[in-house]
């Protein structure tokens, strides 16, 4: 999320660090996921990039999580095979 906001704002890690009064290495560790920022720090950095991050509670889609987890275990080749199988099935259903 931090990397996405920074790149969309067209900033380097150093520039974002300067804007938020933090070392570049701190920004880098957050972006790499080596260390997780607090919510306050995350919002601070996102705001410094010119964006907002509305925090709202939504129902967690457990079924989607399970599907994504299952997809992750497939090879990229199998993922594409599955897409093509779905397209073929759609064509059959449509009488194509």
């Amino acid at each position: 999320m931090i990397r996405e906001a920074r790149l969309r704002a067209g900033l380097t890690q150093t520039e974002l660090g300067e804007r938020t009064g933090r070392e570049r290495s701190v920004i880098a560790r957050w972006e790499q996921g080596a260390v997780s920022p607090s919510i306050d720090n995350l919002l601070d950095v996102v705001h410094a990039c010119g964006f907002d991050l509305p925090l709202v509670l939504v129902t967690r889609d457990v079924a989607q999580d399970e599907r994504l987890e299952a997809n992750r275990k497939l090879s990229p080749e199998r993922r594409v095979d599955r897409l093509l199988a779905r397209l073929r099935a759609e064509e059959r259903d449509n009488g194509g």
Partner: protein
Amino acid sequence: MWIDCLRDSAPKSGITVADSQPSFDPIALLAALDRHRVTYIVIGAFARVVQGTEEVTRGIDIVPSTREENLRRLDTALGELHASYAEGAEEAVADAGSSQAVRVLATDFGELKVVPRPVGTGGYDDLRRAATREPLGQGLRPSVASVGDLSRMLSALEREADLPKIKALRRLAELEMTRGIER
């Protein structure tokens, strides 16, 4: 010349408009680009599927390197693929989201969208940093945009309809990060 496709001022006259939809064969399409040593990064719905989301698409979006030599190779590859402007291309261009001209082409193996600079990115040189080579079979290993960059491109479009896709990509990124920490 097809390379003119990537220039905003390119005239469209003289280019045929496809009137039928061929069946989608992404492997054959990408293989043709590779045969001509075209340098590109796969983005869009097909890239998201390769990375692990569940979507249905009948086309491939690419961000080519806009170096002159590469555009010449792309030109040759598009000729081999019998590329022509896809029907309804104007609407699709508006939908693709790019700060430069997008060309939607019908080819022998399905739709190919050429996006020089997707919104929210700096184009090929920006995306290649985090792109990875993904094995798709038959020795094909195209460069595919990272989950983070795919999310960045979608969120830059600021379309509510894309929120479920962005959410899925973010979840994938979290799963990847968890796996990285577990290693």
